């Protein structure tokens, strides 16, 4: 609440400056959001995208803003920024089916087709479940199992009868297994969310064998392609694709998700 109040104050302060420059009279994120939506409805996608970007500049990350921004860029035909914002929105809310649909639609229109790496079926199922599970929900699930285990532990401390102690002991063991599973799920979800990925933002970019222009061009990627960022050195990203292709790309041509 305090944070949100701070954002409002910040937006109000900045809004005066931006309002003077761009004719914006909105001063809160909600008003800016409504204004951007109005521009979108009237097919003024460039103006809508600019206003959504303004909201994000203030540090407020609502997945709906990112989703709508992705839509505005999609309508402008800029698939790179569209995919980037859909990806960012899905990191906050992986359960957003509409954002996932739009992301798939945008990905289907980019130039590059990169085959996904083969993942064994059971692992793919678990990954699929965790990929669409919001980290907040997994955290709540973990807390739930954790509380149950804690209650059982407390009861065990207080139990006098051998029978009760034994029953509580088994229940505690089972709940401990659940706690471990949910904690693992939370860890995987968080790690997946923190995986360093980037989206190519230029029409075409050569991927080179080293972090300098005079290195050999290994392959070329195009706008909207998703790259795994494996390292960074002096204005270059070391990137790789799921099909094991890897190389170096100028940092200015890719935007981290």
């Amino acid at each position, binding site marked *: 609440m305090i*944070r*949100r109040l701070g*954002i409002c104050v910040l937006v109000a302060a900045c809004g005066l400056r931006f309002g003077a420059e761009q004719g914006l009279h909105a001063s809160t*994120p*909600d008003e800016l*959001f409504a204004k951007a*939506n109005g521009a*979108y409805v009237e097919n003024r996608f460039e103006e809508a995208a600019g206003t959504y970007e303004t*909201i994000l500049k203030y*540090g*407020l*990350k*609502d*997945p*709906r*803003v990112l*989703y*709508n921004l*992705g*839509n505005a860029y*999609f*309508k402008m035909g800029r698939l790179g920024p569209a995919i980037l914002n859909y990806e960012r929105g899905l990191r*906050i*809310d992986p359960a957003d089916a*509409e*954002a996932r*649909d*739009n992301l798939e*639609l*945008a990905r289907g229109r980019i130039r590059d087709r990169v085959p996904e790496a083969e993942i064994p079926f059971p692992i793919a199922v678990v990954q699929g479940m965790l990929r669409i599970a919001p*980290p*907040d929900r*997994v*955290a*709540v699930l973990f*807390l739930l199992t*954790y*509380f149950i*285990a*804690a*209650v059982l*532990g*407390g009861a065990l*401390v*207080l139990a*006098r*009868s*051998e*029978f009760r102690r034994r029953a509580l002991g088994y229940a505690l063991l089972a709940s401990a297994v659940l706690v471990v599973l949910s904690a693992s799920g*939370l860890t995987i979800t*968080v790690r997946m*969310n923190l995986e360093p990925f980037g989206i190519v933002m230029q029409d075409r970019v050569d991927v080179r064998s080293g972090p300098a222009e005079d290195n050999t061009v290994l392959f070329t990627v195009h706008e909207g392609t998703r790259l795994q960022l494996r390292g960074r050195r002096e204005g270059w990203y070391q990137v790789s694709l799921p099909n094991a292709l890897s190389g170096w790309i100028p940092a200015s041509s890719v935007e981290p998700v």
Partner: protein
Amino acid sequence: MRRPRGLTGLLPALALILAAPVAAPFAQGITVRAQAQPTRVNDGDEVHLAVEISGESLDQVAPPDTSQIEDFQIIGGPSTSTRFQWVNGRTSSSRTYSYVLRPRHVGTLTIPSLGVLVRGQTFRTRAIEIEVAQGGGLRSPVAPPPAGSLQGGGQVPAPPGGPRPGSRRPGSPAASAEVRVRSEIDAPAVYVGQQLTLRVFLDTQTQILNLGLQDPPTFPGFWAEEIKVPENLEVKRVQIGNDAFNEYTLMKRALFPTSTGLLTIPPITYQIQVRRLSQDPIESFFFTPTETVVRRTEPVSITVLLLPSAAKPAGFSGAVGSFNLSVTADRSSSQVNDAIGVKVRIGGEGNLNSVSASPLPELSDFKQYAPKVASSSTIQNDRLRSEKVWDYVLIPLAPGAQTVPPIAFSFFDPRTKAYRVITSPPIPIQVARGPDRSGIATPAMSQSDVRQVRQDVHYIKLAPHGLVDRSRPFHRSSLFAFLVMMPVLVDVGLLVYARAQRDPTHAGRRLRRERRARSRARRRLKEARRRLSPATSRAFYAAVAQALTEYVADKFDTAAAGLTHQRIEELLAGGGAADALRADFHRALEACDYARFAPTSSIEEEMRRTLQSAERILVALERSLYG
């Protein structure tokens, strides 16, 4: 029957004498000679070979056998000419076979002696040596003059090694015909898919007797459509330089480039039989001296441009030209399930072969069958005009005011160098309910799957309750950390509390002893199990009895030493143990005592049963005491 010896020797001699006057005129009257010009040439130049047969009568003369010529390629001929002479009451005639040769390599080459069959008798020419040098190395002093006016016109340069247009036959008093072919295109640069018209002309100063293509023409990189030319070639008089020519249009093609870049139309080669110009008036008047010449066009290069990518309309059909669109329906009102015919016609100047997509989109309120597509093309003023017609059958599925929506067709107009999108007006169709008045299409006839016809992103989202900052996830919040720590603190507090309750008083000791009763009894039974053998039966039974007795003593916080069966019975009854359980307990103890103090031959099976019985009793007591 003996024949006189002298007569036998005379017969062959007589036959020779009789035959001589008959054969002699042929052998003496026929002369065959070959002449080649020039005898010194450069590599790639032509050599003209003339084989002349002269005699009084040339009615049974076969062409020379040229199969022996190996150092030269015969690229023209044979053309024949016949000449008659009448001198002092005697007639003589000569026939000349002319060839155009091209040397196969450099060096001193030989035209071998050629055989000519005249009235069944073979006459041979003499061999001729030709000196062939590398290009530019030799200049023959007797080389025929270049075909001045034609070469100078620059329209038909001779292909390397090919016959030179207008070249004259050496050794012949008559000049060969001035004949050439040339090709023209109507534009040096076109867009991909745009029509390019190729015309091939024949310019001649002599009479053309026959002509034909040496090879079928090819147009790599083009889709070609033939433009018919009249069978009787039309002639036009043209002036080229100082000379007047008859111009014939031999071929016309509408070409449509299918790829971009610099494309080349290869040479087109014709074999043309022409009337040779003869300086001999008798030959010209009475006979038709002919000559077969080979002529080819020059390769033509065309720059094919890519269609501009800027402002390319979505769903561009790929058509290039100038087209119009019409959409008609065979009726403006119908009933549910009553078919309507809709005809979409696209036509105009250009090629529609690349247009394959159905112009009518899927309509939600009509069932649509696959259209019947017909295409046709005609040539008007040497331009290809195409027409494509889609015949649709639409079945209305719902009553009301329906509409066949506007249909858009996009093409590139090379004249304006811009894309154009033409759109038909919507066609309103009033659909009445069917005869059953239900207004619902019968499933068997018209039910169809709902299909998505276009794709777009889901619509934007609203925030009726305001935006929420979710930049910091829950698992990284202080609340999450507090909720994780809280149960730990609570459990630790409980543990401390429980320990605090565990005081050193009698009650505390009793509680601890009671909790340990089960584990102690279990240890005793484990010890008994180790002694499960007839040899150690006394120790076994003592351990079992001790386990049972000590369990009761621990549970009820009393000394095991002073416990009698009577006292145990009382304690168990007070603890709430069932009668049957107490009886089992009693029997087990008695069995142990009996075995310990009145030992008999104990068997292992009996001991195992006692042990199992004791275990069951202890489990049952654990459940029932203070249960």
